[in-house]
């Protein structure tokens, strides 16, 4: 299997992405980027189902934007909107990430070991076999899953802070579901949401995902699987349906 290592020090994102694309086109399957420091758009629009990119450092915003296939593993924190409008693939962040993580993601998975900023999973949506999944190991800031149209968000609250301690969760949600470990104060729920304890079927469904998440970071999944979860979803799949009258 051919591999490539790039020292990204002082390389702008465009020539960096050009090198990545060229390597993928030539059949390279493992790419390691060292000394990454703020380069945006890494993997933007990149295809290649069996390609893995390891990012050592802190990538800039819109990591894996429009990406379709590859896996990106970040050893460090990520800036805003990793997985923005991503179609397929996997982003594994060994650290925290900024605002609008997985914005409008249609497929694939984003795993964040620690915390995420505001509006995580905003307007995620599903399509046929595509179902985007965002798993956050730590906590999420306000407006998690805002305008969510499909897919799945899981927040595990493994850090020192509670998984959810700010308002607007699922505000404007009309599809998809949010699972939070432990109870969620209804004060934090956004407009148009409802919460319920998790059923056995749902527990079985998230079990596989939590196991995969734990494996990705070398965490023991046992306590996570034994815990109680709250499921937050939309009251209505059509929040605007009764808002209008004809002229």
């Amino acid at each position, binding site marked *: 299997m051919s591999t490539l290592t790039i020292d990204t020090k002082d390389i702008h994102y465009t020539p960096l992405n050009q090198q990545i694309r060229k390597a993928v086109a030539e059949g390279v399957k493992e790419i390691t980027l060292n000394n990454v420091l703020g380069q945006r758009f890494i993997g*933007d629009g990149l295809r290649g189902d069996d390609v893995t990119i390891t990012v050592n450092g802190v990538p800039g915003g819109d990591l894996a934007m*429009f990406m379709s296939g590859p896996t990106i593993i970040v050893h460090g924190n990520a800036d805003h909107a990793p997985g923005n409008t991503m179609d397929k693939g996997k982003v594994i962040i060994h650290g925290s990430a900024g605002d609008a993580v997985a914005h409008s993601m249609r497929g694939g998975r984003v795993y964040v070991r620690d915390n995420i900023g505001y509006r995580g999973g905003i307007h995620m949506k599903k399509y046929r076999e595509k179902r985007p999944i965002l798993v956050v190991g730590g906590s999420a800031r306000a407006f998690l899953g805002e305008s969510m149209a499909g897919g799945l968000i899981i927040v595990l609250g493994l850090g020192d802070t509670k998984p959810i301690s700010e308002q607007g969760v699922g505000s404007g949600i009309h599809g998809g579901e949010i699972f939070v470990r432990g109870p969620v104060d209804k004060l934090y729920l956004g407009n148009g949401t409802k919460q319920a304890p998790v059923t056995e079927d749902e527990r079985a469904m998230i079990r596989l995902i939590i196991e995969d998440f734990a494996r990705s970071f070398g965490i023991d999944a046992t306590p996570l699987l034994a815990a109680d979860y709250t499921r937050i979803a939309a009251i209505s799949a*059509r929040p605007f349906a009764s808002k209008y009258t004809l002229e």
Partner: protein
Amino acid sequence: MSIGSTPLKFRVTIDPDRCMNCGRCIENCSYGVYRREADSIRINSRSCVACHRCLAFCPRDAIEIEEKPGDYRSHPVWTREIREAVFNQAKTGKIISGGMGNALPYPIIFDRLVLDACQVTNPSIDPLREPMELRTYIGKKPSSLSIRERPGMDTELLTKLSSNLQIETPIMIGHMSYGAISLPAQQAMARAVHRIGTFMGTGEGGLHQSLYPYQKNMIVQVASGRFGVDIDYLERGAAIEIKIGQGAKPGIGGHLPGEKVCADVACTRMIPEGSDAISPAPHHDIYSIEDLKQLVHGLKEATEWKKPVFVKIAAVHNSAAIAAGIARSGADAVVIDGFRGGTGSAPVVFRDHVGIPIEAAIASVDAKLRQQGIRHKVSIIASGGIRQSADVAKIICLGADAVYIGTSALVAMGCRVCGTCNRGVCAWGIATQKPELTKRLDPEANAVQVENLIHGWTLELAELMGAAGINSIESLRGNRDRLRGYMLDEGLLNVLDVKTVGA
């Protein structure tokens, strides 16, 4: 106490002497006006929207549609429309939604602007005999060129040029999504722009597979819902447009109701069938010009800097300053959509009351960009309320590079501007997804009509230019000396930077 019935909007009558009882009116009406009872055709005028489908297909001219046969007591303040909006909301307590564009009788600035022509002191040009340059390039232009001379007479261009769209006429078709309009309507327009050598927008509805043969003439749109957007879609388009706002509903998002999301629309938008497609008001990754720059660059990076990126905003009070920000965001063109722009559906209060006219917006955007020395960084595309070739000439004089047309292209396919696009039962097969209605369009025949319209306008534009002694569209652009304002107030003349007639 019930509000009761309101006066009829339209009265439909069939002249019994002319009617041959063929029933074509029953077949054609999708609003349920006609029905057969025993041997006669019965009429329910209250359902009529004056789309004229029945009238157009009556073989004997037997149908008459009369507008407002009965009316309220006339009153200059409490108009019929105001009273009926009150009745409607008193009954429902909801937001009133409507289709088409702004329906209030604001004065039209285009109709208060007149064009110039040569007399004696400079010769007119006859476009039949002399070349007329209407070809336009949309995109960034360099502020200067760096050229190296090679031995011999050869030279080499050192400046790296940005990719531009080459259009053979400054008329493009704006973004009307599959969902808002039908697939045959998009197919007809796609064929037309392909043949003419211009472009059309996909709208925020993805690009249907049947349009792939025309993708080199399609501008793909990325709006706040990101519907239908993946890397394949971005790579297919000739250019990418970020939709920030729309002239018919500035400041709000869009909701394509589940009823209009059939299997095919769902597939193109990449959402589940029958689900509401909700485009939020803002892009969730754009809260500033700096964020806009991030998306512009993200799209360019995804498509390897091969495609121009446009940014479309609604014409609002501060359009000029916003456009100056857009020009610095790395975008290649700014689209300004005036308050007369059409829509498949919008709250009437927005459609009729929010935004500013395209004429004032374009003039101020062009002036601001020139003042700041950044006019070359973006092309300006004017959209919303372009009805005829004269409007095209006038808006180019006010500083636009090209126009988007929308409603006029639909009218070319039969639309009668009945304004009920939001109902989803368009009898002309345009603003509907019902297969029995969409099949009324013939993509080929309708393509010819759209092509004819743009061709006719282009000929007229060439004639207008020739009469003004101008043989290149570049000499018309921003050429306010070729315009005079007729009965416009001083404030507006200053904004337009146009003199009054006689001056």
